[in-house]
């Protein structure tokens, strides 16, 4: 029978040494804590940056919407003809043409 080359454990490695090696691999070292701290710091920084980006996007959206609304209102105000005066304005002009005493 032919053995597969990846079959573990190696027949020549004793079980005790293998257990020790695995136990060592599971134990957290200072380097592991450092790496985790660095990762978490970066992660938090990325989260803050993402939140700021989102806030900036929201702010920019509101400002754009407000500016657009103001532009629409200004445009409508400028383009819409002034409301018609009441007919009394025409009668006042006629009255002044009539002369005194009427």
């Amino acid at each position, binding site marked *: 029978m032919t053995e597969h080359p990846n079959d573990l454990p190696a027949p020549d490695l004793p079980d005790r040494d293998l257990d020790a090696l695995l136990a060592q691999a599971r134990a957290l070292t200072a380097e592991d804590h450092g790496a985790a701290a660095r990762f978490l710091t970066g992660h938090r920084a990325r989260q803050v940056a993402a939140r700021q980006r989102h806030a900036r996007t929201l702010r920019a959206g509101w400002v754009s919407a407000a500016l657009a609304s103001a532009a629409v209102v200004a445009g409508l105000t400028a383009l819409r*003809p*002034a*409301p*018609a*005066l*009441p*007919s009394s*304005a*025409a*009668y006042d*002009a*006629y*009255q*002044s*043409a*009539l*002369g*005194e*005493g*009427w």
Partner: protein
Amino acid sequence: MRRAAALLGALLAVSLPVHAQATDADDLIAALKRARTLAARGQAEVTVLFPPRAVPTRVAAALPALPVRPALLLKNFTVVRAAPQTVAGRDAVRFDLTPKVGGAGRWSLWVDRAWNVPLAFEERRADGAVVRRAAFLKVNAAPAKVALTVPAAPAGLRAALTRALPGLTFPPGFTPVGVRPRAAGGTEVTLTDGLNVLALVIAPQDVRGAPGVASRRVGGAFVWLVGNLPDDTLRGALAGVRRVSADALGTFAGPGDSNP
């Protein structure tokens, strides 16, 4: 001979009414000219139904001013003397004035026989409805001296108005006699047929339609025509206006009211 007599009779029949009409008009004009320096005083009732107002009738010590322009009046009105009447207990002669053309207001004026000054006048629409009326209820013992002036129409105003509003159709008999700047912006032009008046306004804003009010937008401006004329006549006068060039009236409009 008989034919000549008939011809003479026909000529007299034709000429007599014309002569009588001219006499009536001359008498009326004489009275209206006298009213510029002499006027009755007392208690008069003044009623104005156009333009409409909350209280149409009031009492005054004198009749309102009537800015008559004799030459235009003679040109535009047929004057007929009616039967004698009394106004406020005084003998008066009534003159009826009917426009020769168009639908302008028709007038009746009562002139004191002794003083030769007006005691009452009345304006009616073509359909007979009263528009304005002023009449003495009581008259003082003697008339008072007055100084009523009617400014002459500036020469060239009609041509300038035609340049300012090309396409404007003047209602029959009416001609411009005065221009003034409008406090709210724009220009007001007064038109008259000798007795009736119209207000022509060039304004930056439109005005709501109403009886006796026509308005039309021309380019960026509005033109109003206001007066006692049928509405279709008012609208027709403005219908052909192609352009507004108020600058053409600039030298005719006096300076506006200052605002210290």
